[in-house]
């Protein structure tokens, strides 16, 4: 069964450093998403990406965040200057645009120290 692959599985970074979280969505999917889940809390939408541009973003997705699909297969989330409160599980997901749910990756646990 096709999978969404995320790397790394765990990243520890110093506050103020830039991090890039990587995702390889399912190859024939059209819509791509990033969500985050602070430990013990709900899953929150960050951004959706379609046709090589952001289609929607939440208020969490401020100027410190950016997304890119640099080569037609990878889908990246960059956090320019990490804060302690960015510590969370980050999930990438993709969708074929049909009526089915998304396929989620297994997540990247980001720890900012």
């Amino acid at each position, binding site marked *: 069964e096709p999978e969404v692959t995320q790397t790394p599985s765990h990243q520890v970074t110093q506050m103020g450093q830039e991090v890039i979280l990587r995702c390889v969505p399912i190859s024939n999917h*059209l*819509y791509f*998403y990033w*969500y985050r*889940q602070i430990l013990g*809390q*709900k*899953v*929150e*939408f960050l951004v*959706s990406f*379609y046709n090589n541009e952001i*289609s*929607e973003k939440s208020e969490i997705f401020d100027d410190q965040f950016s997304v890119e699909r640099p080569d037609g297969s990878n889908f990246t989330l960059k956090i320019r200057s990490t804060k302690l409160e960015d510590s969370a*599980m980050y*999930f990438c*997901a993709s*969708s074929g*645009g*049909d*009526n*089915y*749910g*998304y*396929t*989620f990756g*297994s*997540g990247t*646990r980001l720890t900012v120290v």
Partner: protein
Amino acid sequence: AQTVTQSQPEMSVQEAETVTLSCTYDTSESDYYLFWYKQPPSRQMILVIRQEAYKQQNATENRFSVNFQKAAKSFSLKISDSQLGDAAMYFCAYRRTAGNKLTFGGGTRVLVKP
């Protein structure tokens, strides 16, 4: 804005018995989709079941079934013949139309007692 509410932070069930998880949502849309996701300790998000709002028939997937009450904006999940592997967080989620974001509830932790 759409909101999804899960009023039960935690539910406990004896192995082989049945447990029902509640979910309510708020929307002004008539066409939308509802989902239940399972998140085991590995924290992977696994789709359990989905329901299209235009379908009156409740969705069923093996031991998992839903009770969809559109007028009441209620979407509960029933887990029958509970197994130890069902222990996880369960999230209810709403999506407007294809391609749109998922809005999640706060989750319900299911504990299964042997």
